[in-house]
């Protein structure tokens, strides 16, 4: 399983990347960590004519606190995000998710931005970005734009990015003392794709939810935010939450699909399990 032939360009600046993308459009693909693109090319699911290696583009690097957001550059390797004290402090949901991404060796090369742009429905970061109200900084030769996480993802392996655009960084609103997070995924073996996962971030003030973002992944075509849970929980006291009612509302709100290994019914059950664990964790943390 060898990939088809292609031309390889090593960019040293964002402008380099824009020049190639503008000229070649769909025929050119960005190579970041390669941990999703190269397997697809090895299996010939993807056969771009040109690969633009962005590993040397400094504009895509760095993790920096910018006032009330943490800006994470797209080219950060997963291992660096995992080990970042700033991410642990200011973006705890992402920090909690990182050890669940693939395996250690994959995390040495795979990138934060690459995973987001790949938009695998079973992946962790899209769900975390939505739950944390992250904003995506996208650039092209035509300029820059910002997109909320909830609008960035459009479907399986589909995002709102145009062929000539580059994800430069993601701004994550920093955690406050009232912020609580819960992350878990259920998989047959460590490192496998999740059968069901939950990235949850809530603000709990004086024992009451002031926000409740429950985002489920690996259960539908893309990460699924539960509007019903948010409506039900916001304004209510955490000590008085009727967990059964919450799970019933979830069951009506998000109906999981069946994939190669797991039935919809099994996924629905797993979503309930994860939701109960999240609510228990939030109860304990805010007590």
């Amino acid at each position, binding site marked *: *399983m060898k990939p088809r032939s292609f031309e*390889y360009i090593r960019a040293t600046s964002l402008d380099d990347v824009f020049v190639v993308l503008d000229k070649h459009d769909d025929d050119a693909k960005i190579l970041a960590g390669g941990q999703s693109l*190269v397997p697809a090319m090895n299996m010939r699911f993807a056969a771009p004519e040109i690969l633009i290696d962005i590993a040397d583009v400094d504009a895509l690097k760095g993790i920096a606190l910018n006032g009330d957001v943490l800006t994470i550059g797209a080219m950060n390797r997963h291992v660096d995000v995992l080990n970042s004290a700033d991410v642990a402090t200011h973006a705890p949901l992402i920090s909690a998710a990182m050890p669940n991404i693939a395996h250690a060796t*994959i995390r040495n090369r795979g990138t934060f931005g690459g995973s987001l742009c790949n938009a695998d429905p079973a992946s962790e970061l899209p769900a975390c970005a939505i739950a944390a109200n992250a904003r995506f900084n996208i650039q092209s030769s035509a300029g820059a734009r910002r997109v909320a996480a909830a609008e960035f993802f459009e479907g399986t392996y589909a995002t709102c990015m145009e062929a000539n655009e580059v994800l430069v960084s993601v701004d994550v609103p920093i955690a406050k003392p009232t912020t609580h997070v819960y992350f878990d995924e259920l998989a047959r073996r460590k490192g496998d794709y999740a059968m069901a996962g939950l990235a949850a971030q809530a603000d709990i003030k004086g024992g009451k939810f002031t926000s409740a973002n429950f985002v489920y992944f690996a259960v539908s075509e893309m990460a699924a935010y539960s509007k019903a849970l948010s409506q039900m929980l916001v304004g209510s006291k955490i000590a008085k939450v009727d967990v059964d009612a919450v799970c019933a509302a979830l069951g009506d709100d998000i109906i999981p699909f069946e994939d190669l290994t797991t039935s919809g019914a099994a996924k629905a059950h797993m979503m309930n399990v994860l939701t109960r664990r999240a609510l228990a964790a939030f109860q304990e943390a805010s007590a």
Partner: protein
Amino acid sequence: MSASTPVGTPVTITVNGEAMTALVEPRTSLADFLRETGLTGTHVGCEHGVCGACTVMVDGVTARGCLTLAVQCDGGEVETIEGATEAGRLKDLQDNFVEKNSLQCGFCTPGMVLTADELLRQNPSPTREEIREHMSGNYCRCTGYQAIVDAVELTAKQRRGGSLR
């Protein structure tokens, strides 16, 4: 920026301490590049990143040789199982793999040993659960894994100055 045609591009990669210059197609994986130079300790298994048989060291950390293009390593440093063995830093792990019968066909073994070594450098006292977690990206079809975990655990204890018999 630099561009290379599909036919061949010159790369210089420091492999096991020695600068190697060659003409490679961009699509050539690092694993294939290494094997074609005669360094066949790096094995090609699944070619999509899940089995770990192709594990090598790239710029000091483990990487999938099947998911890394040789051209990406231009100007970089690669260490294979051969180089790491010659450098001597795997000897205790390798001796314990033999001692504990942690290999049969040996296909997964170079990847296992490099990955285990990286774990022990990051976490000198892993639990068996932590060993299994870290090694979960390396598949073995022969041994059933138990003996591999035993060897890594024993090595960890020895490196900390104790021994487990």
